[in-house]
């Protein structure tokens, strides 16, 4: 873990809490938390772009969905594929897609970057909507969950809900650690420099476009990891996975959770997801309540939910809660 120790302890405690949850939680919530952890990975991948590189993508769900479609298309009816084949193919596929989209997109910035990423995502959306081979608007089923084994020997049975839970939790932690490592590495210093002042970073001799493209591909690949998990978990993928609504939601998780903190977007996904779940039971006008929540966070918590956590940490005499470095 990185960052000052009060933050590290809080994050460790949170992971500990997640680790015991399947034994105490209702199966319905175990299922929901899997979904939220997947969204957490997805949101962290977008934070690399938004919070650290300064690129606001409005088409990030494209990579989430493409990965799911790849899994659905390559899984045969006869049974689950080996994860050692399925996962690399899905990640490589999304990385290539991100390379193509990024190659065009990083030439622009600001509002144009938002529009071009949205345009690419909508192209992908309509591609899958209009092709009956890919299920059209109905989407595709994933015939079976990937097989995690070695030789003929099964290491982990993903069909078991608890196993899938820990598999996802493990990948959530690994994603956080990998991204934190990337951000501390020289590469991370350069992209953070680009976010603060791109012209200055170029004047120091860095080809900033290339760095932005690499960051875009890494972010797309981690979004692909989330999309892979989502499709494997629900055994289903549809065009709505890569629609602009999905891209907008993950953007909200990052902004409401706290950009540029990595853990903030995960918090954002959890808070939004759990509130959504609660309000949905209380009233059919839950979207109205969610709207008020969003307005309240924007007005009173400019640094997102993570900013609140940091503020509480400081009030207790902890050190300044800087983002993971």
């Amino acid at each position: 873990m990185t960052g000052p120790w009060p933050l590290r302890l809080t994050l460790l405690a949170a992971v500990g809490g997640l680790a015991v949850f399947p034994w105490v939680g209702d199966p319905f919530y175990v299922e929901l938390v899997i979904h939220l952890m997947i969204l957490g990975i997805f949101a962290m991948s977008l934070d690399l772009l938004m919070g650290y590189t300064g690129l606001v993508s409005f088409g990030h769900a494209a990579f989430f969905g493409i990965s799911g479609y790849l899994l659905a298309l390559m899984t045969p009816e006869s049974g689950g594929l080996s994860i050692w084949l399925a996962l690399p193919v899905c990640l490589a596929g999304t990385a290539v897609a991100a390379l193509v989209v990024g190659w065009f997109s990083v030439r622009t910035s600001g509002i144009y970057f938002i529009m071009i990423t949205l345009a690419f995502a909508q192209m992908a959306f309509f591609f899958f909507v209009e092709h009956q081979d890919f299920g059209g608007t109905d989407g595709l089923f994933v015939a079976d969950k990937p097989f995690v084994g070695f030789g003929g020997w099964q290491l982990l049975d993903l069909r078991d809900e608890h196993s899938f839970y820990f598999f996802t939790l493990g990948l959530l932690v690994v994603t956080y650690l990998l991204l934190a490592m990337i951000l501390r590495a020289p590469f991370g210093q350069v992209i953070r420099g680009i976010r603060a002042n791109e012209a200055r970073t170029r004047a120091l001799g860095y080809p900033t476009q290339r760095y932005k493209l690499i960051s875009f591909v890494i972010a797309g690949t981690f979004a692909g990891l989330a999309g892979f998990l989502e499709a494997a978990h629900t055994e289903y993928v549809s065009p709505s996975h890569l629609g602009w609504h999905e891209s907008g939601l993950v953007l909200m998780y990052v902004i409401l959770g706290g950009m540029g903190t990595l853990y903030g977007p995960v918090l954002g996904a959890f808070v939004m997801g759990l509130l959504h779940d609660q309000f949905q039971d209380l009233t059919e006008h839950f979207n109205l309540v969610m709207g008020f929540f969003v307005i309240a966070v924007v007005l009173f918590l400019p640094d997102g939910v993570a900013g609140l956590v940091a503020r509480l940490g400081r009030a207790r005499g902890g050190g300044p809660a800087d983002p993971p470095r």
Partner: protein
Amino acid sequence: MTEDAPLIEAAGLHTYYGASHILHGIDLSIAAGESVSLLGRNGMGKTTTIRSILGLTPPRQGTVRIRGRDMTGAEPHRIAQMGLGLVPEGRGIFPNLSVRENLVMAARPAVDGVETWTLPRICDLFPPLAERLDNMGNQLSGGEQQMLSVGRALMTNPDVLILDEATEGLAPLIRRDIWAVIRRIKDAGIATLVVDKDLDTLLDVCDRCVILAKGQVAWAGTAADLRTNPDIHRRYLGV
């Protein structure tokens, strides 16, 4: 690249911001180890000249040669990689990086492969920075930010250091410290292009002076010449 060519040789630069014509044919050259000051009142094109040389605002006409190679219109990072370090106006510290990261991210060996300026040497040059390595860039005083900006440019091991208003807005004592460092940099054999308001110190530090007026070179000569010519001060620099 030719060895005896000037490090920077700009000829006939015409640069525009949109439709406004800012530079009207600027010539400027800097040889290895030489210290040149760029003078002129506000808005005469000093910063634009620097931006044109560095490729940040490419000139529409004219050529920029670095070490004898034509780099007109090249991407800014390629020009910077040829040994040009910039200390920009307004310092340009990365507020979201720590002091250490601000320095380390810029580290690069010189064009000839030698790494003269390293983190310990920068800490040696600027002791206040050594005590603040883990502070974030936005937690520094103005003087410390300026030291960091100079230190960061030195970490690229440049052959020419371009200082745009490096002492602007600093307290007199800190200003003196920065000038002392600029002298040490010059003594280390690094060429400098200095833009500053402090004429007396500039004349003392620099070998040659170039005065800009309305986007043209109004006067060029040695610092000694300029010192004995108060008439020129009044005409181009007085307020």
